[in-house]
């Protein structure tokens, strides 16, 4: 059965407890199963809370440009003033283990280089977007070295973002909840409203 749904909007609990996490609540289950974009609202309110700050992932992945484009599109519609693109970088990419002053210096040089690389990659993506959706929005980039998926969620919480836009996860099963990664961290502990972009 094909209903040709573009966007599914769901209300969701902010925190899942252990039982719900493994067995799955309805909202999460749908999020994992459906084939369209999903918007999870953690605090649905009758009175509209203005959306000021949107955080979007800037992972080095093929779906990322789409997610960023959606983020701009949505921001434009909701009147958000700022978008932060978060580049999560695997700590493994540094290749140097910090053990003493020397390796510390080396690691920091490499990190700086990676930051530049990621920034320019993301800027290229933003650069080719149509001007009518990027106009008037402040764009910030932030690179974070840490666990993928986890860091961006924590970041969105810290900067009190109003919406978090993420790439769609690849199919996840119970296995991925036992060894959580990427979006599972965010799903178990929703930092804010979450838009998952699927084609």
């Amino acid at each position, binding site marked *: 059965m094909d209903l040709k749904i573009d966007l599914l909007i769901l209300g969701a609990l902010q925190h899942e407890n252990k039982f719900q996490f493994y067995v799955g609540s309805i909202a999460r289950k749908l999020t994992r199963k459906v084939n369209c974009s999903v918007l999870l609202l953690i605090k649905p309110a009758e009175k509209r809370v203005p959306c000021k700050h949107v955080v979007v992932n800037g992972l080095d992945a093929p779906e990322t440009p789409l997610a960023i484009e959606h983020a701009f599109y949505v921001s434009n519609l909701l009147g958000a003033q700022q978008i932060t693109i978060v580049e999560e970088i695997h700590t493994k990419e540094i290749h140097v283990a*910090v053990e003493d002053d020397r390796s510390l210096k080396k690691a*920091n040089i490499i990190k700086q280089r990676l930051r530049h690389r990621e920034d320019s990659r993301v800027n290229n993506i933003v650069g080719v977007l149509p001007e009518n959706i990027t106009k008037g929005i402040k764009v910030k980039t932030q*690179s974070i070295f840490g666990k993928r998926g*986890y*860091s961006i969620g924590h970041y969105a919480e*810290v900067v009190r973002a109003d919406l978090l836009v993420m790439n769609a996860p690849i199919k996840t099963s119970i296995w991925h909840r036992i060894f959580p990664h990427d979006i599972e961290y965010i799903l178990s502990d929703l930092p804010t409203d979450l838009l998952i972009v699927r084609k």
Partner: protein
Amino acid sequence: MIAKKNKKANFISTLPKNLFSGFVVSLIALPLGLGLALASEAPPISGIIAAVVGGVVVALLGGSNVTITGPGNGLVIVLLGAITTLGGGDLYAGYLFTLAAIVFSGILMLILGFLKMGRLADFFPASAIEGMLAAIGLGILAKQFHIMIGHNNEHGSIVQLLMQIPEGLIDLYQNFHIEEFIAAIIGVIALLIMANYSKIRNKYLHLIPAPMWILILSVSFSYIFVSLDLPYPLEDKFLVNIPDNVLSNLAFPDFSKALEIDFIMTVFAITLIASIESLLSIKAVDKLDPERRRSNVNKDLKALGLATSLSGLVGGLNVVTVIARSSVNVNNGATNRSANIFHALFLVIFVLLFQDQLRRIPLAALAAILVYTGYKLATPKNLQKIALIGKEQIIIFLATLLTTLFTNLITGIAIGILVTFIIHVVLNRSISLFVNHLAKPNILMFKEKDAGNYYISIKYFATFLNFYKLKNKLDIIPENENVILDFSLCSFVDHTVMEGLENYVDTFSKKEGSIEIIGLDKHGADSKHPFAIRKLLPFSKLGSIEKYFTKRQRLLKTLAQEYKWSYEPKRSDKTKFLNKFIFFKNRRVPYFYNSFYDDSKTFHLFDVEFNEGEFIAKEIVKTTILHIKLKQTIPVFSLDKEGLLDFVYGMAGFEDIELENHPDFNKRFFLSGEHKTDIQDLFTDELILFLESNPYYHIETIGNSILILKKERLLSVKEIKAMLYFGKQLNLLLSESVSI
């Protein structure tokens, strides 16, 4: 290439310094090595073997800079247990089996190093470690006390031995035995020397460390009998036993018990304690290092493992990094690992040259040194300090201490961890907080684009269980950066984390960086967290001291009224301005108090308290300081009394600046600084005359302010008056000299 050459030149130029400090350390390492081995019921020479092998191997392969390695306090109890149980009564057989266990534990440590388990020591709650150290201290004290009073054959568990102490003292009276009595007198005198050494302030006395004084005095005591042609009143069993030929009498490990469960448990216990002691010491020594280098703990762990195995193979004890000897090393001006090698070489020389004298050392004298060491580990002050942090810490401390005393170290520390965890669960009334979030990442760190500082946010909880995650993040930040640590998303922070963070804050501020902890304010107010976190942050805890004024404080207050100055007895933690002074480069100043200043705060006189060393060798020094803000900038210099120990305080790499036409001044004072000619211009005839005619003070400047101090103790009100006068005159002369 040039850097390499410089390094080499630097290495050679610092060799004499390292040679000297290696020598001083060997003076302590000799009695301690013999004593620690005896306390473990191993042949005395095995302690020296450990120090020699450790000194050479770790210096060549290790990753730390100014540490000293050798036999450690912490292991005495484990080794003693191993030697007595594995041998089944036969101490020598037990020693050989234990050597095999030492070899294996070295291999385990090597593996830990390769697995990068330098983090191992981070998983233990601070109060549990304190409890364990206290138990080790009591263990050493219990056994050695009997030997100190001439009773060589007391056996039993730690608790039994402690209970027997009064009995032993009575026995000394009732069954009077001349040899035991002499041994007891030597022991008690030695103990008095250990206890009072630091109170006597004499430069020449302090050239030789207290344990060496004890050896020198007790050995020369035996020579008095030789010169009088009398038989020495102590039999061989009261004296140290050293084989005639050390090299041909090496003991070799016996591996025949290697598969038994007792043996395996011993290996684990030795490895655990050796690793913890070493890792804690390395961290503590890093803080003392004047150059603030960061040790590569994993590399050090590998080197220690290898050294331990080699030492075990030739009959030596475990090799661990030891804080007491390392801090002596730093205080005597060591700059690199060569000091460790020199300490080993001097030990070899001592053992080969003074065999005869070493055999004259009474066991009671060595035991007294160990009783003092044990007492310092188990001092009631530690419990007091812990009680200040919180009642729950007392429970953790006592649980660890008592379990260790009645069972063994491994069980003790395991109970300590368990009790800590249970207390955390009870305090939070939630086990799910810990269980749900333990495996998850909980830390976010990023470098803020606009301000350029690092921001770290911690979620859920931060306790000893997951402190390593936070440490991992903090460790990869250069210490000269500014960090903001945000706990506002974190609902529980324990004592171990707060204490650990305090160390980081300290290291960062010393290297011109900073760590600011935010988001903890609401914790204290939040009734959901009875574990009042704000209490745990040091300094705010330190209550009002006005209520209990000492006589000195009352006098200071009247003095302040006379001068129309202000007097503020309260403690203040704003000690940052002191960090730039050389005197405080490797001393950590937590706070100053009794401060005394004029309206413009040009003159500021205060008491400071600082620690030298950590955990095992903590020594608290209090001193009175006069700090003068200058109106104008003067060249940076430091001025000290000329003498043997000057380079302890002198600026690294700068030599004594000679002043023309003032031979007497040159002879009496040690003046150092970078800009030689500027300093020479500054010292006018008038200023020199003033300095020559006044009592000696340590004076140093950092350009816009001067620091004056007299002694490493608090000054009396009279001395304070003299110091104030001196400071005022000096300020006047300096400003005149600059304006000329």
